[in-house]
């Protein structure tokens, strides 16, 4: 039991979105968060990332609450949210370089290029991110995953805007990540062709209590 959440509840505004939710994830596993629009997939992912705190319940990383030592948790994890977090006036390469600089100062230029190449961005990596198409920007955001080693990947609708090639790059990356013992949580609205995954349907935990 490496990444466990038990009896979680989440409140946004004055609405409890879900409650009594639990999950548990072991090395090499993939957890898919499904559920209709507004069921709380993004909210749960942000709890897992430590960006917000559950109103009830705890999330444990190797037995310790993630809020006990958040920096350690952050160091184990890569989160790719709805927004791509790219600066439009910096190139795709520079964006990735700046991002890795803070997590892994020793990252070499070759490693960065390789990460971008994994997502088929080699030919456009010199373009300012503002010029890229929506799908290219998404690819650049996802290239973070393979540029540093993190055990836990938290992905919020990663396939949005991606074409078939890019999707298969992503699935390959997830596959390799699993093989190396990594864990992955994916919030998604569309069925993804990944096998042997756990699924957590948020629809089952909707609470809807206004406080």
């Amino acid at each position, binding site marked *: 039991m490496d990444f466990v959440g038990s009896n979680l509840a989440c409140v946004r505004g004055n609405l409890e979105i879900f409650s009594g939710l639990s999950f548990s994830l072991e090395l090499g596993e993939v957890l898919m968060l499904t559920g209709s629009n507004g069921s709380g997939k993004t909210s749960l992912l942000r709890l897992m990332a430590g960006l917000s705190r559950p109103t009830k319940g705890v999330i444990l990383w190797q037995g310790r609450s993630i809020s006990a030592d958040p920096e350690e948790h952050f160091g184990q994890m890569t989160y790719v949210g709805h927004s791509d977090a790219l600066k*439009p*006036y910096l*190139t795709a*390469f520079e964006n990735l370089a700046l991002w890795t600089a803070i997590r892994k100062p020793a990252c070499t230029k070759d490693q960065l*290029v390789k990460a971008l190449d994994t997502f088929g961005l*080699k*030919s*456009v*990596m*010199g*373009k*300012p991110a*503002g*010029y890229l198409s929506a799908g290219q920007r998404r690819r650049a955001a996802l290239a973070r995953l393979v540029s540093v080693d993190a055990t836990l990947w938290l992905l919020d609708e990663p396939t949005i805007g991606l074409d078939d090639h890019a999707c298969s790059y992503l699935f390959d990356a997830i596959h390799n990540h699993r093989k190396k013992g990594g864990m992955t949580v994916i919030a998604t609205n569309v069925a993804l062709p990944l096998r042997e995954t756990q699924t957590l349907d948020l629809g089952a935990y909707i609470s809807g209590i206004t406080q």
Partner: protein
Amino acid sequence: MFHFLANPVRFKRAADLVIPWAQWLCGITLLIGFYFALYLSPPDYQQGETVRIMYIHVPCAWMALFLYFSMASLSAIGLIWHHPLAHLSAQAAAPIGACFTILCLATGSLWGKPMWGTWWVWDARLTSVLVLLLLYLGVIVLFKAFDDPTRGEKSAAILAIFGVINLPIIKFSVDWWNTLHQPASVIKVGGPAIHSSMMTPLFLVAAGFTLFSVCMIVLRIRALLIARQIRSLLIQNPNLN
């Protein structure tokens, strides 16, 4: 003609042809001009030798005004007829005009200290020239503020054209408001009213400055074209970085 020159390679060839000549001509004109200004022309009976600042100050002022007008005209051409070279030339002219404006302000201040007893007064002439500098800087900054140079060109062009209203204000500020600065005596209705021993060096230096500006603008256009080429090369082969 302009479209023909918009190709970087052709422009570079044309520039290589023109620049050496213009450079020599510019150097010689300036040398003769300064010889007249600093040796041949008489010192002023009131101001003494300080009057020689005039031979820099006044041509700089003229260039500042003239280059702004050229820049705005080029911008208008670029907006109306979409000449590829027009915006580029306007952008090339802006920093040079800004430098002449700074020189005009600096020499004016240097001259003001002995003449008026102060570096600076807030009268209409001086302020409007300061505003001219701000306009130049605005055009330069606005152009650079966009990721996409084609967007920057257009926005900067509109700004430059708007700024033209400042030119008559500078020119006629000495007539409309009472200022410390002296009114026009060279370029005015009814012909010049100063002695030819001062006129000759003034016009020689002004001609030299004009040639200098032409050289610089052509050089800068060439540089901008090459920079653009490098940029798109880098975008295509980021490995060159």
